[in-house]
């Protein structure tokens, strides 16, 4: 049988679940953003642009 009545306990648990949800979404966004920055600001060898020691230098 489902619990029909809302209790303060449910509010607290819901708050905790939403909080954790936001943290996880934030973490995914952070890793995504970091990936974009790293990919667009580094050459194929992982060096920042203009600092590679390749044959062309």
């Amino acid at each position, binding site marked *: *049988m489902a*619990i029909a*009545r809302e*209790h*303060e*306990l449910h509010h*607290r*648990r819901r*708050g*905790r679940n*939403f*909080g*954790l949800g936001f943290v996880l979404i934030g973490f995914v966004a*952070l890793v995504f*953003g*970091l990936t974009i*920055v*790293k990919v667009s*600001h580094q050459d194929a060898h992982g060096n920042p642009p203009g600092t590679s020691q390749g044959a062309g230098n």
Partner: protein
Amino acid sequence: MSDLSAIDHGHEAGFGDYVQLLKPRVMSLVVFTAMVGLIVAPVPVHPFVAFTAILFIALGGGASGALNMWYDADIDRVMRRTRNRPIPAGRIGGGEALGLGIALSGISCIMLGLATNLVAGAFLAFTIFFYVVVYTMWLKRSTPQNIVIGGAAGAFPPMIGWACATGTVSVESLLMFALIFMWTPPHFWSLALFMKDDYSKAGVPMLTVTHGRRATRRHILVYTILLAPFALGLALSPIGGPVVLAAAVLLNLGFIAGAVRILGRDEATAEADGYRAEKAFFRFSLAYLFLHFGALLVEASLRAHGLGGW
């Protein structure tokens, strides 16, 4: 059966309790000093990487706070200042705090290493180890020098911020470390003076308990005097400048004057006015650190516009 009245609601933690476990007030100091360390470094960092780095340094600081609360739950139960923390208040179990602390430690160090460089990640791991194992588990309960040596843990964040940008340790980052390291003892000893019986009840060998309050007042003055050369050294270093020098001179004069005032008082006088001078010194010590690092930030901004610096 769904009789919820049978459940003890006081033991169900909310999201805020887990945040409290990460010691957000201590975290603010960690965030600020690490941010300054990162910004004043001579190597520019992409703003998003810098933001990520500060976030994971803060998380690492929070993780060590959770591990500290797990280990110190017995002390926290006794002390008035800490008995409402989530573990002694019964809202979060010790095992849960331990698990959270270990998980966040791992995440923060690995993510910082990936976002910036391995030196910074390893440095954060060492800082957590130092705070949890060296300070919390070993020194805090065994020597009145607990605050002096343990203060190193709180002094590492600007060095980590600097390492995020440069991947190394240098004189400038060591001077930032020294500033916080030398500032920590007078800051905490002034707190111990007006938190009267808390530490003795909990059996923590603070200087006030082992050597008495008179000796603590003397130690505060000695450390504020020893702190001044490091503050001036930082002001004269390549990341310093006229703004930092002016701040260092004014703040250290104020700090030493406060310490002299504390030394000139006896217990009867202090008790009569509710430890007014000791409390004022404690508040000033917080402002001291924020303003000092704020001056470094101002100097770095001026330098970026062709002003400031030496």
